[in-house]
């Protein structure tokens, strides 16, 4: 397997696994764990497999061009440092999956959990092996999103939701800053490629944009790594399930920040700005994180603050700008991940077995779970920096760096003291973690009787603790070479000599370690009793609550103010919204007109044809009449609407558009039937003659709306007139007239445009038509009419009563009698209309007609049968299956389009020739005809489906909707 394919698999596999994991049954804990564990293990092996290539400073790269114009390529890149991180992410990922299998309860929906966990792992691997800064930011944001979803996994819990939202806001905003910073770097360097950026350190540091770029990148890194002053989201993220905390908030995601700092260390470090910004943030996080950790009662809360503190240590080491500092930082990233993940697992086990994480309630658990207790003790000792464990080694390196002088300043001078103090605090909280949970009084009121967890739940923690121990005892023989590879890939030529040994002789760092151990232990003894009963948080600083500040500073403006603004400025009522919309449209049209003249000429009254004038006199009368009657006389309004439609239709025919006239005519027919079918379900509204004049408020409203309508109508007329009077200068229509026959093989240019030139548009439109028809169908399947519409209409009741009273009649005869003659004609018309529709369809390419109009025409043939014989009778004889028409036609249209791919042409390229058919004669047989056939069938299916679905409501046994009592309607 070539190495660059390996990187692609490494990035794709977790996401594929994530999609598969999402499809499992909700309680499939075992298969989920097998899948997720398998994916993690494969990724781990692939990473391990790549080691020989990168061992001596080699880099595995793979590049896929993405948007080369912007210098964006999907580049992946694995070097020693990335390798170390990838091993951590996949290895700890595997252990966390194993742990989660036992941690998650059978009632939790695990597919979501494992799916998100795998997706998160993929995103994290993306950050690590990204070879392009934009790609890196992309995966960076993905980790924020998946972290949000994972923290909020138990979304029924308000704490989880708040914690998730806060984490997303803080890290998401940081990610945004990072994107800006990365773009600045790209501007400075001229490329986003990581290799090129890493080679241009000098240029970046000396550029005038260095400081803004640095600040933005640091914002990204510090928010992600929960560094002061952005640390507050991390303790709140502890509402996540413990495997998530172990994976994301100790070993991986929060490490992304320091990972990025180390990644960019060669190009950005070494300046005073870098030293001060990072140094202050790191030192504050180190000291305050450790101090706050002492006073947490939640085990996970303690670990969260400890993570802030340890990441502060790493940040501070990186801020120094010295190669040895970078070595210590990279080493501590590795060590912290191992002991912190194992501690989180221990906290989770205790929570799982006892039902609480409150250290004030716990105690004496050593007797019940000695193995877990031992593991936690070793890991805590590593956290405190006890010799012979890995935490001790990197802490020694840290002390050695702290006493060196890097930049003459107060910050640098104070470092050794701060380091010792923070280490003493670390000893205190580590001691507290162990002592208050495993020793002391036996717990009395625990929610559950504690006992050892299953072996496989302890196993991940055990493995990690073993790693701490092995690395701590024989560092040079175990992690030595890997650490060297990682360091070398970051520092390159500047890689210093360093020795990984447990014993460096009696020196200052050792004395500092000893002081910290003793001072920390004494401090714990002093605080022990206070901590048993104290409230959460350190004295005095208890009320400095980052969370509350965040809520006041961010949530209030973004949520509360927005809600108030919405309350004041917006309405849910349709009429005011439409009014505003219309007035805005009017103003928008008025503005350009008032700026430049419309060039209106004095209208010429002489050339008006009297017949068309009469047509429109009727049409306008119908329109106004429809507007006037639509409230009380719906049927009248509908007929008048038809009158206006007919005038429109005549106008199309008048001005040389036979296709439009045809379409308008048939659509007018189906629209009328449609609305007629709907009328039955509307409330009865009778105009009360004795009501007297309308109240002033209603009259005012109507006059205002009439004024708006008048203004909009007048504006529309003016605009239309002005546009029509402008001379037409070389429109694109000539193109179609010139090529319609030559290239499209049709003489009806409108049809050729629809099925050939603009075939893709038509494809979209018939898709919309299909979607609308299916939506109508779906909506009507669950249709519940208002209570007053459930019974039969008055006329029907009367007719049926009459029929039942007569001995020789049965219900429905009267209505049948009314339509006796028309029904026969309608039935006879069925074949005639089918032939007409086919005729319209076939001639469509050369003469007025085509798929749309033929489709609606055929639909009317079906509808007429329904009108003539009634729904039940028609469906006994005729099965129409409109949904099949829709589906098959859409398929036909799409396959016709795709067939042109076979010949190497783009989608929907058509080919045309004439075919001689017996009797019928020469028929244009462009492939567009098949496409048009699809249009035809779809229009038939959609129209019939909508009308029939509506018609069916009258014969269904309907249940009334449970409605809020309908109040009496008024003006």
């Amino acid at each position, binding site marked *: 397997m070539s190495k660059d394919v390996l990187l692609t698999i490494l990035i794709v596999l977790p996401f594929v696994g994530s999609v598969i994991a999402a499809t499992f049954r909700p309680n499939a804990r075992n298969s989920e764990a097998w899948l997720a564990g398998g994916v993690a293990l494969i990724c781990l092996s692939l990473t391990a497999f790549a080691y020989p290539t990168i061992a001596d400073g080699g880099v595995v790269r793979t590049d896929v061009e993405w948007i080369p114009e912007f210098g964006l390529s999907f580049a992946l890149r694995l070097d020693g440092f990335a390798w170390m991180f990838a091993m951590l992410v996949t290895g700890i990922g595997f252990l966390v999956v194993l742990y989660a299998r036992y941690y998650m309860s059978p009632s939790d929906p695990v597919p979501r959990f494992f799916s998100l966990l795998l997706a998160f792992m993929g995103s994290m691997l993306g950050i690590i092996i990204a070879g392009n800064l934009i790609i890196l930011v992309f995966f960076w944001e993905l980790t924020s999103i998946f972290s949000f979803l994972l923290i909020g996994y138990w979304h029924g819990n308000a704490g989880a939701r708040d914690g998730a939202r806060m984490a997303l806001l803080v890290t998401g905003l940081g990610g945004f800053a990072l994107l800006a910073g990365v773009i600045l770097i790209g501007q400075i360097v001229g490329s986003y490629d990581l290799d090129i950026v890493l080679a241009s350190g000098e240029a970046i540091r000396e550029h005038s944009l260095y400081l803004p770029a640095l600040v933005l990148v640091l914002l990204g890194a510090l928010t992600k790594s929960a560094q002061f002053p952005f640390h507050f989201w991390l303790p709140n993220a502890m509402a996540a399930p413990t495997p998530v905390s172990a994976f994301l908030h100790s070993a991986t995601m929060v490490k992304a920040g320091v990972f990025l700092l180390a990644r960019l260390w060669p190009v950005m470090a070494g300046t005073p700005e870098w030293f001060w910004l990072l140094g202050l943030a790191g030192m504050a996080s180190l000291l305050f994180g450790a101090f706050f950790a002492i006073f947490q009662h939640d085990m996970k809360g303690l670990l969260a603050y400890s993570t802030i503190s340890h990441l502060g240590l790493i940040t501070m080491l990186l801020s120094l700008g010295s190669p040895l500092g970078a070595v210590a930082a990279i080493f501590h990233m590795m060590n912290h991940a191992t002991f912190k993940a194992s501690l989180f697992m221990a906290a989770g086990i205790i929570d799982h077995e006892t039902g609480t994480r409150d250290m004030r309630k716990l105690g004496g658990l050593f007797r019940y779970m000695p193995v877990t207790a031992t593991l936690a003790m070793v890991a805590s000792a590593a956290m405190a920096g006890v010799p012979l464990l890995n935490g001790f080694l990197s802490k020694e390196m840290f002390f050695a760096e702290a006493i060196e002088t890097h930049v003459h300043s107060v910050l640098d001078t104070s470092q050794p003291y701060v380091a010792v103090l923070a280490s003493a605090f670390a000893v205190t909280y580590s001691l507290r973690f162990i002592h208050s949970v495993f020793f002391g009084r036996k717990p009395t009121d625990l929610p559950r009787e504690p006992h050892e967890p299953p072996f496989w739940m302890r196993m991940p923690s055990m493995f990690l603790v073993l790693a701490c121990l092995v690395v701590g005892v024989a560092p040079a023989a175990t992690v030595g070479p890997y650490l060297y590879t990682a360091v070398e890939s970051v520092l390159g030529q500047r890689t210093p000599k360093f020795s990984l040994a447990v014993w460096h002789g009696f020196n200052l760092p050792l004395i500092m370690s000893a002081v910290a151990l003793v001072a920390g232990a004494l401090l714990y003894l002093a605080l022990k009793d206070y901590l048993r009963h104290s409230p959460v948080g350190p004295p005095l600083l208890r009320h400095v609550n980052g969370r509350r500040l965040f809520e006041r500073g961010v949530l209030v403006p973004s949520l509360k103010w927005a809600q108030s603004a919405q309350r004041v400025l917006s309405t849910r009522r349709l009429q005011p919204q*439409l*009014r505003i919309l219309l007035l805005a449209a009017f103003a928008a049209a008025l503005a350009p007109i008032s700026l430049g003249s419309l060039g209106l000429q004095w209208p*010429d*009254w002489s*050339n*008006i044809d009297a017949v068309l004038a009469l047509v*429109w006199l009727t049409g*306008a009368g119908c329109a106004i009449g*429809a*507007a006037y009657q*639509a*409230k009380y006389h*719906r049927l009248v309004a*509908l007929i008048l*609407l038809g009158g*206006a439609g007919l005038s429109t239709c005549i*106008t199309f025919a*008048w*001005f*040389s*558009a036979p*296709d439009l006239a045809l*379409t*308008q005519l048939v*659509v007018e027919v189906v629209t009328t039937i*449609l609305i007629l079918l709907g009328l039955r*379900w*509307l409330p009865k509204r009778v105009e009360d003659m004795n009501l007297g004049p309308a109240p002033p408020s209603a009259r005012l409203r109507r006059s205002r*709306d009439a004024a708006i309508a008048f203004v909009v109508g007048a504006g*529309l*007329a003016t605009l*239309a007139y002005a546009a*029509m009077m402008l001379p*037409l200068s070389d*429109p694109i*229509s000539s193109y179609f007239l*010139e090529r*319609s*026959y*030559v290239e499209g093989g049709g003489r009806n240019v*409108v049809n050729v*445009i*629809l099925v050939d030139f*603009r075939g893709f548009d038509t494809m979209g*439109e018939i898709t*919309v038509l299909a979607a609308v028809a299916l939506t*109508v169908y779906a909506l*009507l399947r669950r249709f519940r*009419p*208002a209570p007053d519409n459930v019974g039969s209409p008055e006329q029907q009741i009367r007719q049926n009563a009459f029929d039942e009273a007569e001995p020789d009649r049965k219900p429905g005869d009267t209505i049948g009698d009314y339509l006796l003659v028309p029904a026969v004609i309608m039935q006879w018309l069925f074949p005639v209309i089918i032939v007409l529709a086919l005729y319209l369809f076939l001639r469509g390419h*050369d003469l007025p007609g085509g798929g749309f109009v033929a489709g*609606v025409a055929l639909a009317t043939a079906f509808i007429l049968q329904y009108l003539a014989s009634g729904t039940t009778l028609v469906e006994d004889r005729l099965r129409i299956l409109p949904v099949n028409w829709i589906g098959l036609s859409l398929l036909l249209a799409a396959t016709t389009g795709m067939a042109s791919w076979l010949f190497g042409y783009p989608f929907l390229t058509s080919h045309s020739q004439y075919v001689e058919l017996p009797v019928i004669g020469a028929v244009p047989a462009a492939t567009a005809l098949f496409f048009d056939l699809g249009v035809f069938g779809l229009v038939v299916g*959609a129209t019939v489906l909508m009308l029939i679905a*509506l018609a069916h409501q009258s014969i269904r046994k309907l249940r*009334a*909707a449970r409605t*809020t009592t*309908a*109040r009496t*309607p008024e003006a």
Partner: protein
Amino acid sequence: MELLLAISIGILGGSGVWLLLRPRTYQVIIGLSLCSYAVNLFIFSMGRLRSGAAPILSSRTGSLADYADPLPQALVLTAIVIGFATTALFLVVLLASRGLTGTDHVDGQEQ
């Protein structure tokens, strides 16, 4: 002729707009239909009004001097069909809303 059609478009549009601002859903659906006539005619008229221009090619190629403008016609043709579909959708939505809320007011409740 242009003046006649412009005034007609104005009247159709104005009547439609008045109905759009009414409180009953049926009024709105009639108003939308009237508006769609106005808009279709408006778009159609952008190809200019020519009575007696041939719509079908009689030779291999043609020019705008002899033939009607096909482009606005093609646009309006699909607009008519889609207009029917949206009318149907709106009708069903208003019927469902009437069933669920018990009123035919556009806001789902009487003011």
